């Protein structure tokens, strides 16, 4: 579902790029505050730190939890990159591949998950020409913001009422269909093709791809292991 350059008008690309920067900035601040702790100057002094390095009220230091989290983000990114390469046939000459938004969100929480998806998308765009460079904002909004961050809350809400794996499966299906919908709207906004026609075609294909997304997400989570965590 990686939008190449040319499908979107410059206005659409640029406004979505702005939106993506905003979303990522928010996610980064959330993650940074979760993985670091502010060490006050008084503690820094007793620990023998160099006084000239101090500023404001103290200094941010990576916690043990933070170290583990950030390295886990790298591993999850690696899994998603690899799994996204694995296109599976759907029907009459069409394939689909994992988006991995819910996989990332379940393992890392919505904010770290969105960052991981965005890093994967950036690498795919720069090194593999998969997804446009100008369209990177659109792709981050579709597969990161919609496919990971928003879909996390679908999972989080559903798991209060139903079995966790069922909640994951539904959220994974939703993530693909919702991302496809966002993608269609963006392509429609460019005005080169009617939004209704694109949406109809995209949703009918991705309703099927979403089922496989749900299955692969559950399978990968099972292989990855049980240490799910949030925040």
């Amino acid at each position, binding site marked *: 579902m990686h939008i190449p350059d040319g499908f979107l008008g410059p206005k659409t690309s640029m406004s979505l790029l702005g939106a993506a920067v905003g979303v990522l900035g928010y996610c980064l601040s959330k993650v940074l505050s979760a993985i670091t702790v502010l060490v006050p100057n008084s503690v820094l002094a007793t620990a023998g730190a160099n006084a000239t390095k101090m500023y404001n009220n103290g200094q941010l230091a990576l916690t043990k939890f933070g170290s583990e989290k950030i390295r886990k983000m790298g591993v999850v990114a*690696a899994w998603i990159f690899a799994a996204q390469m694995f296109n599976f046939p759907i029907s009459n000459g069409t394939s689909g591949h994992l988006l991995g938004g819910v996989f990332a969100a379940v393992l890392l929480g919505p904010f770290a998950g969105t960052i991981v998806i965005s890093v994967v998308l950036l690498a795919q765009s720069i090194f593999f020409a998969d997804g446009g460079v100008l369209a990177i904002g659109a792709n981050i909004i579709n597969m990161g913001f919609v496919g990971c961050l928003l879909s996390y809350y679908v999972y989080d809400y559903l798991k209060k009422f139903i079995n966790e794996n069922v909640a994951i499966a539904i959220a994974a299906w939703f993530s693909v269909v919702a991302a496809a919908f966002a993608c269609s709207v963006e392509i429609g906004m460019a005005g080169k093709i009617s939004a209704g026609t694109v949406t109809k075609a995209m949703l009918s294909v991705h309703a099927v791809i979403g089922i496989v997304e749900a299955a692969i997400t559950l399978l990968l989570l099972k292989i990855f292991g049980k240490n799910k965590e949030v925040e």
Partner: protein
Amino acid sequence: MKKRILVAVIIAVLAGFFASRYPDGLDKVSGMLGFSGLAKENGAVMKDYTISFIGQTPISSAIAGIIGVFIVFGVFEVIYLMLRKKAVVPSEVATSRKTRAK
């Protein structure tokens, strides 16, 4: 962690050999509705998940996949090393403060 990276590498290699070559959902739809021509092709060192001088073979794709796995993994390892270097206090101080805050 090494085991988990190995799993990612295995998935990438398997993808190189067994992934479907059909166009994905968006590519198919753009072709069907006749707007695939709008796509501007960008160049990239590993375009189409293959190494250009090896060609469009499964092995080429598997190698490109392994490189990709290490690129995205590496991004976070570098951030980790940078943040860890920035920490001027022994980790026990930071950790104990974190526990107390809870």
